[in-house]
């Protein structure tokens, strides 16, 4: 867009082409294309969201509140938030270290590590759960070791945390790496010259610069962890009251035809992660502008 002079033709939306006057044909083509795209987005994205709102609100707000305050729903929400918080804490520390190592150090196989980070995007959640079962399941490779120490990973919360960690691994490094490489070293070197220790430099100089990338990455991890389904289904088993997260509850409720509970929980979960992601994004953009 920057190549264009900010003239009235651009403001009118017509593609400004010197030597050509945008005739009625161009205007109609433009309207047609905008119309098609808006219709597509409306039918594909907006209508289903409205559909869920309408479906959940069909029995009134009271029905939603009472469905969400059922003990098994509350327990599911508690477990989901717990798993998401643990995931965020682990990724917050190790994901940042990983980003740091990738940006600041040279080592053999750096390209490989860089590529590995993106792999979870392409791995099916069911495969993730199955991989963990092969390791930690009853006849898994690590089963003898786990038996000795009486640790339960499969069909228990630790396994679900591992699955969620796998699925959410790319988000934080992918947000932090670009910010960290754009930040460069000058300010850190200045701080070091003034006598700051490495740790002080990180907390006082580097981290504040990374802050928004870090926060947005954390929120993406958290939101993605809230909504994880396939991987925690396979490794957790969806045992009611013990390993049932919100998504697993919705799945069971649909199966048992408890539609009010299913739709209310789906609405609550969808709204929660939507508000988190969209809200943080808006906040970040506003801060950037100022």
């Amino acid at each position, binding site marked *: 867009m920057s190549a264009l002079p900010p003239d009235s033709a651009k403001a009118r939306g017509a593609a400004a082409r010197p030597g050509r006057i945008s005739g009625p044909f161009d205007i109609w083509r433009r309207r047609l294309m905008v119309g098609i*795209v808006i219709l597509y987005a409306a039918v*594909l994205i907006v209508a289903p969201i409205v559909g869920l709102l309408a479906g959940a609100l069909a029995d009134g707000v009271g029905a939603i509140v009472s469905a969400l305050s059922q003990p098994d729903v509350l327990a599911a929400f508690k477990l989901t938030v717990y798993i998401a918080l643990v995931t965020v804490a682990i990724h917050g520390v190790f994901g940042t270290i990983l980003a740091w190592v990738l940006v600041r150090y040279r080592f053999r196989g750096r390209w490989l590590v860089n590529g590995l980070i993106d792999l979870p995007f392409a791995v*099916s959640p*069911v495969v993730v759960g199955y991989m963990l079962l092969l390791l930690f399941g009853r006849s898994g490779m690590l089963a003898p070791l786990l038996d000795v120490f009486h640790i339960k990973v499969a069909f228990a919360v630790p396994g679900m945390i591992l699955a969620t960690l796998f699925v959410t691994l790319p988000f934080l490094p992918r947000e932090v790496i670009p910010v960290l490489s754009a930040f460069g070293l000058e300010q850190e070197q200045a701080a070091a010259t003034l006598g700051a220790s490495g740790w002080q430099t990180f907390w006082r100089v580097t981290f504040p610069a990374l802050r928004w990338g870090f926060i947005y990455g954390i929120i993406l991890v958290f939101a993605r962890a809230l909504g994880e389904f396939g991987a925690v289904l396979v490794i957790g088993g969806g045992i009611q009251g013990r390993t049932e997260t919100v998504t697993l509850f919705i799945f069971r409720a649909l199966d048992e035809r408890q539609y009010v509970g299913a739709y209310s929980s789906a609405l609550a979960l969808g709204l929660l992660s939507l508000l988190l992601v969209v809200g943080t994004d808006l906040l970040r953009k506003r801060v950037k502008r100022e």
Partner: protein
Amino acid sequence: MTTAAPTLTSRKTTRPAPWGRWALKSAAFSYLAVLLVIPLIVIFRDGLSEGVGGLWQAISLPIAWSALKLTLWTSAVMAVINAVMGTMTAYVLVRYTFPGKSVLNAIVDLPLAIPTLVTGVMLVLLYGPQSLIGGWFQDQFGWGIIFARPGIVLALLFINYPFVVRAVQPVLENFERDAEEAAATLGACSLTIFWRVTLPALWLPIASGALLSFARAIGEFGSIVIVSGNLPLRTQTAAVYLLGEVESANRQGASAMSIVMLSLAFGLVLFVDWLRQRGQQEPAP
């Protein structure tokens, strides 16, 4: 791929001290190894323990084969539609001004923020056989959207909407319009300009966006298990078939399907990486 500015890595001035550097590196590597590498090695070892022949045997079972075929077919249909509509969305967002443009721009990202299981529930509510729209389609044309193949494609389209748009949009924004203007001065009509000048510059982002969405679609589970109806041989996709194999403790079938899905997805991701690197080296003519 992100790369750091190589000249900035001076060994003297960056802290932490050598032991700290060593500690950070080993923390990062063991984190990746425990979470990613070990599980992946285990699954490939398990699936190939009977050799490639065993893997082939498990995959060529009719139910497994049709699940795989359905997955590839619906993903391909999605990728084509997504490529066309995503490019069009990006074009409209970059080139035109219209009321609601910023809203449309925000809507593109919504699918990333919605859990895919919730997407499935949404689609069933709106287009399912008991809904107004789904019921009407059933009465008029005798075919259902949900619990059938169109539902699978619809769910995949929903989830993958951002990928082509967000790949094409920045390239189109930076696209120098001199060539388009030159073509216009030479008397080319706007459609010719788009086909001959604009599109050739965009094929790389379009292809990489569409292929990435294809790779993701192969493994998609949460929305599809709700939407597809899961009839073996008819509407059961690879991921749902895999779940069945895992639940019935059929280790060979599960490992074989996992390896096929993983290899397809990794191959596609690597191919897209290669395409992008090649595109960076020699900018489009």
